[in-house]
């Protein structure tokens, strides 16, 4: 074998891509030629450095959650068709809208206490901050049996963490945040490209409050109070789907409680 042939074949030799007799020819040439041997050594050192040094990335949980969420959407792969909504969901969502319209909204507009205004500002700030890289969750998990116990001992309440994957709202994780002067639980769900933050903390006022909606800076905020717990959900998701999410959350809450 000539040096020029060896030069052409040495990469395939290192990669084990030559036929057995070609492999043997290169090996024999390397044994007799110092220059080609040198080229071979440099090549071996280079591929070893690359193989050992280059990072194999793991797909982040948020990406997995987003993909699972998209796969659970019946309209993901039929973009032309009118998305068929499950009728019971529509009923539940409608129920929330009616409840909000009949009581929650009036309450919210008639007496907007200072604490409420502060909570709105803080909840929105927390949501926006959570969207910065690395701030979304302290515990990233799609399993509610990891997320729920994580809050134990960190907070004086155990937030509701139902699995809503089947409805297209995969769990992403949880974190602790500060809202209106005290630590609160933030449980994070996904919906396609959107993130939903659900905040909860013990309420000072024990009376129940139906969901009331507000919009600020392109985000929807929904506030309600249930069983002595203040609840907020914030997302840039459209309002109908956010209400659908809250209906599902409340429904699973009443069955687990």
């Amino acid at each position, binding site marked *: 074998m000539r040096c020029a042939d060896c030069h052409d074949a*040495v990469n395939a030799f290192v990669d084990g891509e030559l036929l057995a007799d070609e492999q043997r020819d290169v090996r024999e040439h390397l044994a007799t030629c110092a220059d080609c041997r040198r080229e071979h050594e440099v*090549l071996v050192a280079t591929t070893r450095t690359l193989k050992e040094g280059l990072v194999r990335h793991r*797909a982040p949980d948020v990406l997995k959650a*987003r*993909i699972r969420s998209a796969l659970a959407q019946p309209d*993901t792969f039929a973009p032309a068709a009118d998305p068929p909504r499950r009728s019971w969901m529509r009923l539940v969502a409608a129920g929330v809208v009616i409840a909000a319209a009949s009581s929650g909204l009036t309450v919210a507009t008639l007496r907007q206490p200072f604490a409420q205004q502060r909570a709105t500002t803080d909840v929105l700030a927390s949501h926006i901050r959570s969207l910065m890289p690395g701030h979304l969750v302290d515990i990233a998990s799609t399993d509610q049996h990891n997320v729920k116990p994580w809050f134990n001992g960190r907070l004086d309440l155990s937030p509701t963490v139902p699995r809503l994957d089947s409805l297209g709202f995969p769990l992403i994780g949880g974190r602790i945040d500060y809202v209106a002067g005290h630590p609160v639980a933030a449980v994070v769900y996904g919906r396609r490209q959107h993130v939903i933050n659900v905040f909860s903390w013990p309420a000072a006022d024990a009376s129940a409050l139906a969901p009331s909606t507000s919009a600020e800076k392109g985000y929807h905020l929904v506030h309600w109070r249930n069983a002595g717990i203040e609840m907020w959900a914030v997302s840039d998701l459209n309002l109908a789907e956010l209400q659908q999410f809250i209906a599902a959350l409340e429904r699973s809450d009443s069955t687990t409680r």
Partner: protein
Amino acid sequence: MAQRDVERFERIVLPHLDDAYTLARYLLRDEHDAQDVVQDAVLRALRYFDGYREGDARAWLLTIVRNCCLTWQRRHRSDRLAVPFGDEVIERISDSRETDTRAIERSERAVLERVVAELPTEFREVIVLREVEGLSYKEISEVVGIPMGTVMSRLARARKRLASALGLDVREAS
């Protein structure tokens, strides 16, 4: 598409998500862009899933991811990453709490990542497919859409550049 097909897709294609994300990270050099493009690529893959018969599901998915990355780059052509991860690298190297060996290891790794990031795309993709993903020449030729001879010559040229950038081709004194 029936639920059964979606389940088959999840079983056959989703196990290769880490490989898909790795390729996108190296091609786009940005973790958020990589996430968006991989999500788009996976949903495209699902739409084309009828066209997938039997064979190498990983190479099939990587082909789609690669095409989505190149399309994305054409659409967002900007050289905002002339120096890919500058601050982070300097911060890591100067972190005095680390032991010397670990610091050297980290800085070597950072230099390596940077040298690879600065390769032209056509070299970077064959290097990542071969050295990180471990694909055969035949698989690389399918993913990139070039003959096997071209795979070999591109790999050779890319490695030569890297050896030189990393100082591995310097003739020893002996």
